[in-house]
């Protein structure tokens, strides 16, 4: 089973990377960008087949490792 976890910065948390990318895109002539925020994606392959169980487990993984819940949110998608 394939799952995708997307981890993004919480609102209001400074994103120096996003800001630098914004600037660089502007410098390359892309004019109509209002903002860029950068996050992480994890493509996880699981051996089980129970989607609900997988979802719960992935949430655990996020809480314990994949996301820094102090400053990040996470979202889980399962194929």
């Amino acid at each position, binding site marked *: 089973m394939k799952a995708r976890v997307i981890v993004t910065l919480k609102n209001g948390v400074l994103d*120096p*990377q996003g800001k*630098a*990318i914004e600037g*660089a895109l502007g*410098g*390359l002539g892309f004019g109509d960008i209002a903002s860029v925020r*950068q996050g992480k994606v994890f493509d996880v392959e699981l051996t089980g087949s129970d989607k609900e169980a997988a979802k719960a487990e992935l949430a655990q993984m996020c809480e314990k490792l994949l996301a820094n819940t102090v400053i990040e949110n996470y979202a889980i998608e399962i194929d």
Partner: protein
Amino acid sequence: MKTAVIVFPGSNRDRDMFHALELITGTRPASVWHTETSLPDADLVIVPGGFSYGDYLRSGAIAARSPILKELVKKADQGVKVLGVCNGFQILTEAGLLPGALMRNAGLKFVCREIELETVNNATSFSNAYQKGQVWRCPTAHHDGNYFADAETLKSIEDNGQVVFRYANGTNPNGSINNIAGVTNAKGNVLGMMPHPENLIEDLNGGTDGRLLFESLLAQAA
């Protein structure tokens, strides 16, 4: 030998490089700000270490798109020698001047440690003062130095003798494929390397092994 160092916002081993070049060549290199669109007349252009643009997005990615890089590509095509060290290496690969890519260190941590390098090809402008097979000390300090190239690219750079320096005696600090520490372009006038020869050039540094690299270039220019 006339030299120039390109400085980006976030470059921080530019000062080390100015110092090394001045000490070894006797003249201070020209300093070129990243927004400039032309390079001074120089035998050697250096892209120094650091964290250009914070190394945000990918190490070297944003710097590789700055105005001065277009000019650098032109000069490199004309045969001017270009040396990229650490972040400079990352920038040159991102700019397409060198093959491959530099990924996060296998240990995932920043590593500042002295390693050993073997000069595997001493027939380049950057390595002629070393013996072939000579093993020498060199400091490293990086987070993204794990050299990667796909199988085909790897075969071609190995076959062409583009691999100039390899980590020796099990000192590979970052997981680089084939222990690659420094590669040139096909023509041999552009070299990128992760370790910092500019930090081992005088007694204060505890050795002078890094000097030979600059002396190779000096011998060429003479």
